[in-house]
């Protein structure tokens, strides 16, 4: 058999069609760079690794399916069955052919790994990760090619027609990738695993864990199907059913193995540990508020271990001091990540029963236990498990994770969160958490390293007035930003240390903080605590502000973003732009239901211009901001579709959207910034505009509520009309 395999492999490697399939697989990634990117996120790893690999994987699956069908139908096509059957068993030959094609797909992956390596290393530079790169080729691409071959073989065994089989594989692939039924479900993705984006700085562990699990499911399913389909190989001139029954009699161990594999795959699918079971119509689910008004938390002490970077499990114990003001027994509810289990509960030292309420909702599930009528109660819990993520959009938000490069545990994933009131703002909260070595945690409280164990480093995080907190840990470097009169801590990945130092970015960011604080007002956050700005993983899909933490996405730090001239003239100025978003975008949101160009980008761009004017003078600001804005707006105004909207109407909707977003981009940044500059001239200059913006920042708008500022809010504050500022 080994000799036959070597012979078959050698024959395949001498066939031009094998090389054609390999070439298609290896050329398609080139189109993924810019011509046909499948993902819209803009981290460097998404652009230079995820997009090319995605396209190569999808194309390669079909190419290897076609190759398999061509090779399997050769004997049939040339009516040589009689000859080959006399030399070697059909079954053995078929299995060897498929194995040889799998070997060829592995060789293709190795070739691609070597060919694209230097370019990827060059482009990704400081964010290149050999592990992620290798996994992309050998966990994403290679199994897809192999599965393409196996799927084609299964179809060919059943239909005995290459054309019908290829059509079946193509339809199966498309059905799993397109449409609402299966496309959002990561377990249906047998070819290209669910690939929402890739992180540059914080690893992609969860993405690859889910990918590996999905590969295991499909290995079982395809293995089972392959064995089952082998029974359909035509024998003694019999047709499908006859051959199958005959095969069943002779190859019953094969059938048994097939059933075992299929059942195994099904069980793995059903009991997947990564996604929660939030109902699909989660928006219509009425949330029950279990918070008790008669139970008050007087202290929280958590000990958690988040150092298991292999599986990402978390375990820990929690001790809550709870006052029961009702004088009656009460039910105390906890909200916890649905991947966790409460192993034991003790109330006042006595074992108690923990009840699992069993309904998942947005990566949370309620548990409860009974509290006695005593006023002072001590509740001790032991819990643990693998944190699950929200299943919406196929669990695209790969943010709750414990990995070697990143730990992200939200309030429900650190420990069970008691649904009770906090007694006072001084109620102590203490968390002792073991994290993988080399990580620095950031949370709402104050973190301090206390010891080092063989599992990692133990950190003590203290805070007051809360029943839960979030912990983000990575190779964070802290920069203290001064200038706003408030302590601001900026945490970013160690990978960007040199880059930010060479850009002198901290000075630019401090200038941005000082400028915005002085001109618009201090950034609102929890008083008495430092304001923390974090660079976080792309899988959060947008920044957020919560308490004294504000997150900015890692794509702000990519080389391409730092070279975006619409945001700033240099990398440091782009980062200042991103910091100004803390005021415009996260402090107050700029949006307008009628004007798609009125977003936080315009005012942030204008503020960046004003800051640079203050720092470097009018000439610099005119050359690097006003003139490029005017040129961009002029160019946009001259756009063919702006001048001839009748042609835009003729386009199919998807093309129209592309063109409108191109025009929209210019108008959101340069167009709106220029409009605000015109308004500045009309209201009497810079100081008058600063006063208006400061009022809008502090008080917010009126049209959509104080959290939002619409274009009308802005114009009303300026006492101007759309016509006056040229916004018609």
């Amino acid at each position, binding site marked *: 058999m080994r000799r036959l395999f070597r012979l078959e492999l050698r024959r395949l490697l001498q066939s031009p069609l094998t090389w054609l399939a390999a070439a298609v697989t290896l050329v398609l990634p080139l*189109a993924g760079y810019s*011509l*046909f990117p499948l993902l819209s996120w803009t981290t460097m790893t998404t652009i230079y690794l995820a997009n090319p690999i995605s396209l190569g994987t999808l194309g390669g699956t079909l190419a290897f399916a076609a190759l398999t069908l061509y090779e399997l139908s050769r004997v049939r096509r040339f009516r040589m069955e009689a000859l080959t059957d006399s030399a070697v068993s059909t079954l053995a030959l078929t299995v060897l052919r498929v194995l040889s094609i799998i070997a060829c797909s592995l060789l293709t992956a190795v070739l691609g790994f070597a060919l694209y390596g230097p370019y990827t290393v060059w482009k990704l530079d400081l964010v290149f990760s050999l592990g992620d790169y290798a996994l992309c080729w050998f966990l994403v691409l290679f199994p897809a090619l192999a599965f393409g071959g196996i799927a084609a073989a299964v179809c060919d065994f059943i239909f005995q027609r290459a054309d019908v089989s290829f059509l079946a594989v193509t339809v199966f692939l498309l059905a799993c990738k397109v449409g609402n039924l299966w496309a959002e479900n990561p377990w249906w993705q047998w070819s290209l695993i669910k690939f929402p984006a890739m992180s540059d700085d914080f690893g992609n562990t969860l993405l690859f864990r889910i990918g590996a699990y999905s590969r295991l499911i499909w290995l079982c399913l395809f293995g089972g199907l392959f064995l089952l389909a082998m029974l359909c190989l035509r024998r003694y001139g019999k047709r499908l059913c006859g051959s199958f029954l005959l095969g069943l009699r002779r190859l019953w161990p094969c059938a048994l193995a097939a059933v075992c594999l299929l059942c195994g795959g099904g069980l793995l699918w059903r009991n997947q540990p990564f996604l929660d079971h939030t109902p699909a119509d989660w928006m219509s689910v009425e949330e029950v508020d279990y918070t008790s008004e008669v139970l008050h938390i007087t202290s929280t002490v958590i000990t958690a271990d988040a150092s298991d970077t292999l599986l990402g499990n978390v375990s820990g114990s929690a001790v809550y001091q709870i006052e029961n003001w009702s004088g009656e027994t009460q039910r105390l509810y906890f909200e916890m990540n649905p991947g966790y289990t409460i192993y034991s509960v003790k109330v006042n030292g006595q074992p108690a029963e923990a009840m699992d309420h069993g309904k998942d909702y947005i990566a949370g599930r309620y548990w409860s236990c009974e509290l006695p009528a005593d006023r002072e109660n001590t509740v001790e819990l032991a819990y643990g498990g693998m944190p699950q993520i929200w299943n919406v959009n196929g669990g695209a938000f790969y943010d709750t994770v414990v990995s070697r490069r990143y730990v992200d545990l939200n309030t429900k994933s650190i420990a069970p969160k008691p649904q009770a009131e906090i007694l006072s703002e001084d109620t102590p909260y203490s968390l002792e958490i073991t994290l993988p070595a080399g990580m620095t945690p950031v949370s709402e409280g104050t973190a301090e390293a206390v010891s080092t164990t063989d599992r990692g480093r133990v950190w003590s995080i203290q805070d007051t007035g809360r029943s839960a907190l979030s912990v983000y840990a990575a190779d964070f470097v802290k920069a203290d930003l001064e200038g706003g009169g408030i302590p601001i801590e900026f945490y970013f990945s160690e990978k960007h240390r040199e880059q930010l130092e060479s850009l002198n970015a901290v000075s630019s960011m401090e200038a941005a903080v000082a400028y915005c604080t002085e001109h618009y007002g201090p950034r609102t956050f929890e008083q008495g605590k430092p304001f923390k700005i974090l660079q976080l993983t792309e899988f959060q899909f947008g920044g957020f502000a919560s308490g004294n933490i504000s997150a900015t996405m890692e794509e702000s730090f990519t080389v391409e973003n730092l070279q975006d001239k619409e945001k700033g003239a240099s990398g440091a100025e782009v980062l200042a732009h991103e910091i100004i978003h803390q005021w415009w975008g996260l402090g107050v949101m700029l949006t307008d239901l009628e004007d798609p160009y009125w977003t936080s980008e315009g005012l942030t761009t204008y503020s960046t211009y004003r800051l640079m004017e203050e720092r470097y003078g009018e000439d610099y600001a005119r050359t690097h901001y006003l003139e490029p804005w005017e040129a961009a707006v002029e*160019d946009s105004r001259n756009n*063919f579709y702006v001048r001839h909207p009748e*042609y835009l109407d*003729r*386009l199919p909707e998807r093309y129209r959207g*592309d*063109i409108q977003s191109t025009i929209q981009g210019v108008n959101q940044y340069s167009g709106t910034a220029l409009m605000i500059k015109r308004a500045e001239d009309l209201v009497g200059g810079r100081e008058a505009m600063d006063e208006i913006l400061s009022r809008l920042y502090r008080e917010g708008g009126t049209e959509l509520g104080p959290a939002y500022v619409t274009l009308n809010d802005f114009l009303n504050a300026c006492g101007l009309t759309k016509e006056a500022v040229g916004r018609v």
Partner: protein
Amino acid sequence: MYKKIFRYELRRLLWNRVFLGLLLILLAYGWLTLIGEILLGVANTAPFSPWSFGSYCGKLLPVICAGELFFLTFFTGTRECRVLADASPVDPGRYAAVRLGAVLAGTLLLSVCGAALALGFYGAVFGWMGFASLAAPGLLVLVPAVVFCLGLGWMLGRINGALLYAAIAGILLVSQLPMPAAVDFTLGTFFGTFPKTLGTMDPAFTVPPSILWGRVGYTVAGGIPILFLWRRRTK
């Protein structure tokens, strides 16, 4: 007899999987270029303006030229029975011309298919049919480059067939490099920037002398080796 040889060579060139594969790649690439870039209009002109069409042809040019050089490998491979062909009673010069003609015809077919895709797209999406105005930019881009590659490929192929693959890589590389507008192989810079310097919206198609000379240069550079080699073979 030469007509027969031409038909035979052409059929050998076109009636195989390589040509079909190249054609499919060209059409797929053309389609992605049309919907990804050309649809937006080049230099603020219409997607169906001569400028946009010229830019589209320039984008397809590397694939067309790579195809042309690949066709030439058919006549320089080790399987070529040169001894038999040389022993046959045909004039080597004319035989070479017939083969070059077949390569040119294959390349022409690729170019026509690429152009037809764009014209079909213009007709189907915009209902625009003024195709005559697109001939000039199409010819300006394609003819000099195709002649250049034919001459270069023919010359390299006579030295060593493997050099043709190096030429394919070279053409693909040169197409991506930023070059001065006059010697830009694909004329991408010219189509992308020149209309904006003319000071009017939707300017008529004009070509400055520097660009014209550049294209003449490419044509001559490709034509000389062909003439030279043909004459030598004839002697």
